[in-house]
């Protein structure tokens, strides 16, 4: 198997600015491997360390110890980001630009030739179903449309690896379904998708493998059907793995 994303004993600590406050361990020796062509779900409750892991992979946060690699290149080198696409959670793109201008701007950063840029923009706006709104300023877009333009910008360089941070958060059921369909299509095209989500139903539908982390530690990793083998739903498995104990009713 061709490993595209790898972390080795990844540890991230944040020192507190408050006096006498302990250092917060966001990640405690995380080992992860994502293979080419798979859709990998990264699960965990809020504050588990999902976004921190993504921030390390994207070079935003330096690891305290351990290492992370994309395509075998250390993430601290900017070249490691040449073949990835990233969609952050809840981003409001430049509202004075149109979708077409936004994509053209990001294409310039990847130094795509003009003809290739035009072709990619047409292709992506069709994929995310925004062809009709390509000349409209982004400020007039709905939340779902903004999320889809975000997906289009993440794909402008035709990346081999997509990192999506809660891509369906805040969307209505229709918006969620459209994003899910796009991820499915990308999977069919052979792209590797690494995404975090709280929507366990959608994770179950589209992911090949999942990892569950809690308090910075990897709790389990494996195929979806293996993890939920002895549980009725993935949600039950998730709650059990993170050690959630339901309180008895008073």
């Amino acid at each position, binding site marked *: 198997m061709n490993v595209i994303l790898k972390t080795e004993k990844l540890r991230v600590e944040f020192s507190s600015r408050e006096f006498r406050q302990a250092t917060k361990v966001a990640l405690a020796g995380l080992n992860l491997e994502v293979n080419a062509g798979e859709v990998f779900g990264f699960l965990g409750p809020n504050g588990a360390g999902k976004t921190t892991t993504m921030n390390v992979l*994207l070079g935003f946060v330096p690891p305290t110890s351990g290492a992370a690699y994309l395509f075998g290149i250390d993430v601290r080198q900017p070249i490691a980001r040449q073949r*990835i696409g990233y969609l952050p959670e809840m*981003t409001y793109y430049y509202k004075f630009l149109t979708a077409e201008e936004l994509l053209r701007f990001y294409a310039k950063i990847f130094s795509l030739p003009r003809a290739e840029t035009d072709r990619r923009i047409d292709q992506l706006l069709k994929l995310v179903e925004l062809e009709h709104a390509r000349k409209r300023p982004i400020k007039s877009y709905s939340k779902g449309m903004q999320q889809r333009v975000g997906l289009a910008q993440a794909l402008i360089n035709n990346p081999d690896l997509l990192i999506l941070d809660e891509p369906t958060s805040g969307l209505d059921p229709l918006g969620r379904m459209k994003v899910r369909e796009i991820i499915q299509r990308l999977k069919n095209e052979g792209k590797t998708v690494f995404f975090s989500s709280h929507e366990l139903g959608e994770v179950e539908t589209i992911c090949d493998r999942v990892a569950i982390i809690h308090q910075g530690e990897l709790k389990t990793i494996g195929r979806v059907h293996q993890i939920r083998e002895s549980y009725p739903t993935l949600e039950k498995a998730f709650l059990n793995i993170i050690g959630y104990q339901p309180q008895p009713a008073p």
Partner: protein
Amino acid sequence: MRNIFAVAGIVIKELYRRKDFYVLFILTVLVCLIMASVNIFNDKQIVRYLKELCLLLIWVSSLVIAITTTARQIPAEREQRTLLPLLAKPLTRTQLIFGKFLGCWLACGLVLLCFYIFFGALAASRDHAWPLLNYFQAALLHWFALGVVVALALLGSLVFAAPSSNSTICFVIVATSLTVGRYLDTVALSQAEPFRSVLYAVYFAFPHLEWAFGMRNLIIHDWPLVDWGFAVLLILYLLAYTAAFLVAACLVFRRKPVN
């Protein structure tokens, strides 16, 4: 360079799609046209006052545009979270800072072009003369002085959390430089030590934008051009301050967490 120009292009687009420039331009035009339509005391030299007022309004408007446009760049990228997808691409933080600077500075250049064309037309309607070279020299030095202001505001946007506090501090620094900057050495002379040395240090460390600001007097009083050798030296002086503020901005931004 391609990345820097791409970022700069977005800043310029933002400026001409927002209303700030149009509002300030229309206000300047209105005030100047009203002033031009009256002839107080039948003074034949009143055109000088008109030119002075118009140039002062141009300076104030350009400073407002330079500071407010620059001060919101990085904070807006953080707030809207567009900084994340941007830095996740092969774009370095240094390129982003230089792109933002170039965009704001070029946008200020375009703003100045519009203002000085209006000024030229207004002055020609009364003076019946087009001293183009004088206008060019004054506008050029004005533009390089704005370069210092843009770099300062960019550095401030990385140090201060809110764009409003950054704008206020930048306005205070620039206003101090334009109004009392030139008198600091004189004040220092009358002080005892150690205040004398402190004031001298401030005088020499402070960017003296008033030298470029003073160029407007040459236009107002129809004085001849300043020697181009001196103008080049002044440009180099302003560029040195711009470079110093930009380097400081890059160093601060390198240590700053992205989110």
